[in-house]
């Protein structure tokens, strides 16, 4: 994903190699522009930027008013400072902790490419002086040190997030991004592993059989799809935050982007034919549409 970020920052998006990757996100950009969310909860992982090995929170929710891009060794990426939604984030934190998920609250945090590259892919290039088109609540998940949370734990956290969003008094349109994954291994002699068949099966089941996906043990992610593919547990937080029944709006998959596979899917809560009038209004805050996205280093 740093490679994707570098391609964006260095104006390489029109080169054939990168165009193949970026063009896959064009329909998603359109979808997001039409959806016009107020807030995006972005589930992502930090890559030794905000968190070193001094402190390794399993789930950390960003409650700050803004999140500047981190200097990952070659200066901060030239992107806008992400504006948070502290009131909403704190509401979520309280609701979710009382729902038995022990989040870490973060009131000061820089965000790295794990968050800013997905934003670029879905919003296009934005200069530091510009604004992202919605507020951002980062949810950092430890997927760097083993063991990360289980897929089931992530899925259940997603469900708790949904309840927290629904109970917020303000009527907001919320999207949730699951990032990270899909198959990739970037460490050790087995680096470069890609398992497209496994990835595609994961995408199929994300819509139809998320509960089945929650039973995948960590060993299987690592063995079948590469040591770093374990990041896919983050997608299950996104999936848990959606309705049990969802519609697949869009999907894109390509290999490679530098060292990894790129998979991307947009899911929307299944539209009920009878939803109208009052009921619609009541559920507006709850309609967490989800963009899952991914890509890596």
């Amino acid at each position: 994903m740093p490679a994707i970020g570098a391609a964006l920052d260095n104006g390489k998006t029109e080169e054939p190699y990168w165009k193949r990757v970026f063009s896959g996100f064009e329909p998603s950009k359109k979808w997001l522009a039409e959806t016009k969310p107020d807030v995006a909860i972005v589930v992502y992982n930090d890559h030794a930027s905000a968190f070193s090995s001094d402190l390794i929170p399993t789930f950390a929710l960003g409650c700050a008013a803004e999140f500047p891009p981190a200097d990952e060794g070659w200066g901060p990426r030239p992107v806008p400072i992400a504006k948070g939604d502290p009131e909403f984030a704190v509401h979520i934190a309280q609701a979710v902790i009382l729902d038995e998920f022990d989040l870490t609250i973060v009131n000061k945090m820089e965000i790295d490419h794990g968050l800013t590259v997905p934003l670029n892919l879905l919003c296009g290039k934005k200069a530091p002086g510009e604004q992202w088109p919605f507020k951002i609540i980062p949810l950092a998940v430890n997927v760097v040190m083993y063991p990360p949370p289980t897929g089931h734990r992530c899925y259940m956290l997603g469900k708790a997030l949904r309840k927290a969003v629904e109970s917020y008094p303000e009527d907001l349109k919320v999207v949730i991004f699951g990032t990270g994954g899909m198959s990739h291994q970037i460490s050790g002699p087995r680096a470069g592993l890609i398992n497209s068949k496994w990835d595609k099966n994961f995408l199929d089941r994300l819509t139809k059989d998320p509960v089945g996906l929650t039973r995948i043990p960590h060993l299987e992610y690592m063995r079948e799809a590469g040591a770093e593919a374990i990041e896919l547990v983050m997608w299950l937080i996104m999936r848990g935050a959606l309705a049990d029944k969802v519609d697949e709006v869009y999907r894109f998959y390509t290999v490679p982007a530098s060292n990894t596979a790129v998979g991307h899917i947009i899911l929307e809560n299944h539209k009920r034919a009878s939803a109208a009038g009052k009921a619609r209004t009541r559920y507006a805050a709850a309609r967490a549409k989800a963009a899952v996205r991914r890509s890596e280093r």
Partner: protein
Amino acid sequence: MARERHDYDDIPGTFVFDAERCREGYPINTFCMSLMKDANRKAFKADEAGYLKQFHMTPEQEQAILKRDYNRMLELGGNIYFTAKLGATDGHSFQHLAAVMTGSTQQDYAAMMLAGGRSVEGNRSISGKDKPAKAKSQSPAKKRK
């Protein structure tokens, strides 16, 4: 104390960065984090062995860093997102590091990725217990599709 055996130790060519390695590799990863600052990068480059002294590593860890033995760093508790900062300090791209760790040239590694990456077939299990695993070859030239 010997490292506890885990199911994931059966995955070939893989050093899972678990809590035990995280503890063992704390000095390596803390050293790598220090390279986020330009002044530290310069101090390290000026006197590599001297700079490492402040992190209280084992001699094996120091040697792995001085020799840029990236796989050994992982084995001794380094994590790839941290050790990549050392690679960046040396002016290397991530793909260069990946090629080094797999024992291939960057050109061959890039060609493997373009051809769809390293196949999982034959790369699932050291013990061979895992059913689809047959060959143990980790040849980077292996292509899928």
